[in-house]
Structure formats: C-alpha cells, structure tokens
C-alpha cells in the first residue's frame, strides 16, 4: 500500500509518517508532502490523507485525485493530535480496502 500524507508544508505529517511506519508492513510506502504538490504526484499512491489543518483544500484535492480513482480523506483529528500512528495507518488501510472494493 502506498500512502501519501499532506499538510501545509509536509512537515507535521512527516512526523506522523514516522509514527505510522511502526505499524506498517515492510512493503508499504508512506510519505509526506505539501498539499500543493498532491495534484502532481498523487498518481504514485493508493491513498491520500490530508492533515485537518488543510481541510479547506479537500474538495480541490478530491477533484484532482478522482481522475486516478485515488481515495482522499482527512486524518482523524484526535488521532492526529495524539500522533497516533496506529489509528491513522488503520484509517488509510480502511480507505484502501474500500477503494479496492469499489473498483
């Protein structure tokens, strides 16, 4: 599974990436980028999740990623605040599964 996390500059989410890696499988790819870059790079990922602080961009990102059928969502606020890597990883995995079922 390839997960893309995005916030304003990709900095806070990169902290989250490290926390998520502890619960990820070895073949998983988890990366953090600036939300501005998402429309250019989303094709390299299976799931895109945004930090809650950039949620106003959700619609634009959803529109961009719908071209590649990549699911987009906002990271759960409580999990984000507690830097709970396990829960965010599970969130991404659920989105991935749901997306695969849709296809």
């Amino acid at each position, binding site marked *: 599974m390839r997960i893309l996390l995005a*916030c*304003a*500059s990709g*900095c*806070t989410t990169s*902290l989250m990436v490290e926390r998520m890696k502890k619960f990820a499988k070895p073949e998983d790819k988890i990366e953090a980028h600036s939300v*501005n870059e998402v429309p*250019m790079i989303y094709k390299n990922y299976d799931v895109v999740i945004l*930090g*809650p*602080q*950039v*949620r*106003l*961009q959700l619609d*634009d990102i959803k529109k961009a990623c719908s071209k590649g059928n990549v699911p987009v969502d906002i990271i759960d*606020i*409580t999990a*984000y*605040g*507690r*830097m709970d890597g396990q829960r965010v990883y599970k969130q991404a995995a659920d989105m991935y599964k749901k997306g695969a079922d849709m296809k």
Partner: protein
Amino acid sequence: MTQQKSMEKVTEIAMKIAKPLAKFGEIKGVKAVSMGLVSCMPITIIGSIFVLLNVFSTVGGMGIPGVAFLPFFTGIADKFAIVNNLTLNFLGFWAALTIAQNYAELNNYEPKTAGMIGVLTFLLISTDGPTKGLLDSSYFGARGLFIAMICSVWFVKLYMYLDRKNIKIKMPDSVPPYIASTFGSLVPIIIITVLCFLIREILGINLANIVNNLLAPITVNAENPFVYSIIGALGTLLWFCGLHGAALLGPITQPLTTLYMAENVAAKAAGASVLPHVWCGYALGAVGFAGSFYVLTLLLCRSRLENLRVIGKAAAVPIIFNIQEPLVFGVPLVFNGYLLVPWILSNFVNGLIAWFMTSTNFLGKAFADVSWACPSFLALPFSTGDLKTLILIPISFAIAYVIWKPFFVAFENSEEARMKAEAVAAQEEKSE
C-alpha cells in the same frame, strides 16, 4: 448552552474569513507566487548564512564595539557579502525563475521553458542589458520583487496561451521530438521577447517602477503594529478552527514580508546601521509562539491529569521546532473555548512588545532568513545578528504564563469534571 452558542458564532465568523482566503490562495498565479518564494528557500538561507558570516567577522558587527565574533575571518569579511549579494540580495531575479516554474507545473506545463521565460522577461523588463560589461542590477533585489512576480506569471500565462492556440513552427514527423519541442517553443518566446522589448526599449516604459509606485500605498502603510496584530489574531482564530492560519494568510502577507526582508538585506549590504523594516523574518512570530506554546507545553507537562501530561510530553519536541499541530489537535485547542482567549491575548501582547522593542531599535531588526522550523532561541539572534533579542524569550514566556495560567486551571478543572462524569457513566453502564 450559551457557551455553545457563542462558540458557534466564533466558528461562523472564522469560516467566513477562511473561505475567501482559501479561494484566494487557490488562484493559480497567487499559489505560484507563494510556492515560488518557498522554492527560493535554499537561496535565501545560503544568503543568510553568508550575511551572518559577514556580520560575525566584522569588528563591531554584533553591536559590541571593537569586538568581532569570528576574528580569524575579519580579513575576508567583505568577501562573504559577495555571496549574500548574489543570493538573498538578488531575490527578485531568483523568484522570477522559481515562480515561473511553479506556475507552469501548476498548469501541467513543463517547467524548463517556463523558467527560462520567467528569467528572460524579468531581465528584459528590468534592465537595459550590460554596458561595457556592467549590468545595472538595481531591480534584481527588493525593488524587482513585484515585477518578478508579475513577469513570471503573466508572461508564462501568455506563453501557455500561444501554445494552446498552436502558434508554433510545425516540424515534420522525422524530426526527433526533443528538437521539435525546442523549436515549438521558439515562436511564442519570440513574440514574448518582442513584447518586452517594445515595452521597455521602444516605448521607454519602466514597468518595474510603475508597479512599485502603484503598490507603494500598500507596502508603505501595511507595516504597522495595528495591521500586524489583526493578522496575528486572525491567524490564531483560523488555527482555533483547526485550519492552518499561516498557510491561509501567507498569500497575503508573504509578498509583503518578503519585500521588507529584501529591503532590510539591501540596507544591510549598503552598510546601514539602522534597518528600515520591523515586520519580516520569523523572529517576530517566534516570540508569540515561544510565549504561548512553551508555556502551554509546560503547563500540560505539569498538569495533575495524566491525559494532559501525555499530550504535553508528545508535543514538547515538535514545539521546539515550531510545530504546533500536536497541541492544536491534541489538547485540543481546536474549538476549545477555555483557551482561545489566552491564546489570542498572549500572542497579541507579546507581539506588540516585540514590535515596539524592535521598531525603537532597542533590538536589532531581521536581515537574515531562517527556516520557520528553526527554534526561537536560535532564530532570534541568527536572523537579527543581535544577541540582545534573546531577552524576548523570558519576557514573552513570563507574560504568557501570567495570561495562560488562570485559563488553563479552568480548562483543567473542566477536563477533570468531564472525565469523572464519563467514569461514572461507564460504571453505570457496567452495573446495568
């Protein structure tokens, strides 16, 4: 109940502000300017390192007469300024390149040609070319920043328009695609070049100057403590709604603060002892930040409630690097009626103190750029070259402590009550 209602009101107001801001930030030209200035980061940081080397190695450079911080470099102090002049002091030139590239990428055009167009049009519009080997670079820095933004967005836009209209030389299929694409961009670039040539050389219009004069009412009047405080409070209010305040307000403030920084850099390079601008660099913001969030982290770590202590510990390291999300979403500060008032109030008071201590030249002004993730206690002396600025940290910490403490106690009590109620509810559920 009333609290809930007033909370809804605050949220409503904040969203009214946030939505148009987000819309503005999504305009491709605006976004490209923002991203382009961020892309210039290596250039501004390198320039800052060299301007600091220059200041540290100049006798009396740190404000202490007769003392140089790096005495073994004093002989080559002037040489350091050369790198600073070519990087930070040429920010307009570099921005013309990076903004054009970002603008093209946002429009799914390849950035190589766009970068070239950005620099080419910037040069054509802002200089008359070299005479006897010397090039007038007076518009390469602060004075050329706005024209760089305009050239790199509008001329790349024109290029894309011409490209879409298929105004190009068509090559036979036997020509390799690489060569064909080079020729393909030729006609649009010729048209753009002729246009710039006409504007500056034939009609004699100094576009850079006109733009600066048009924007002068904004750039001159925007820099005052009133505007600064309003922007600061807005930023906090947006964070309170869980939105990235700095990123939303950036498209408005960034061109201004970048200009102010560039003018400070130019003044410093020209040897001025008093710099013109207060509102630039991260130092000013670092003070409000160090106040509120250092205090909040400390209060959390020493809280009698375990769940708050956990959040304090988790936030402690990110907070040193100015990452506030663990606090914003962890405590949470989002929609937290208890903590909004101290948050806004303490940033407001500390911001004004820092502003007036700087504007009266008691403390040095910023002339070097540091990354926003640079800890405050390093950002202050490094961006201003003035060790005295460090006193802002204990001052803002003390003020923030006094402001935050009572509100935090109220919040702690409510948390305790909430947890007790939850525990009782869970108990009842079990017994049933």
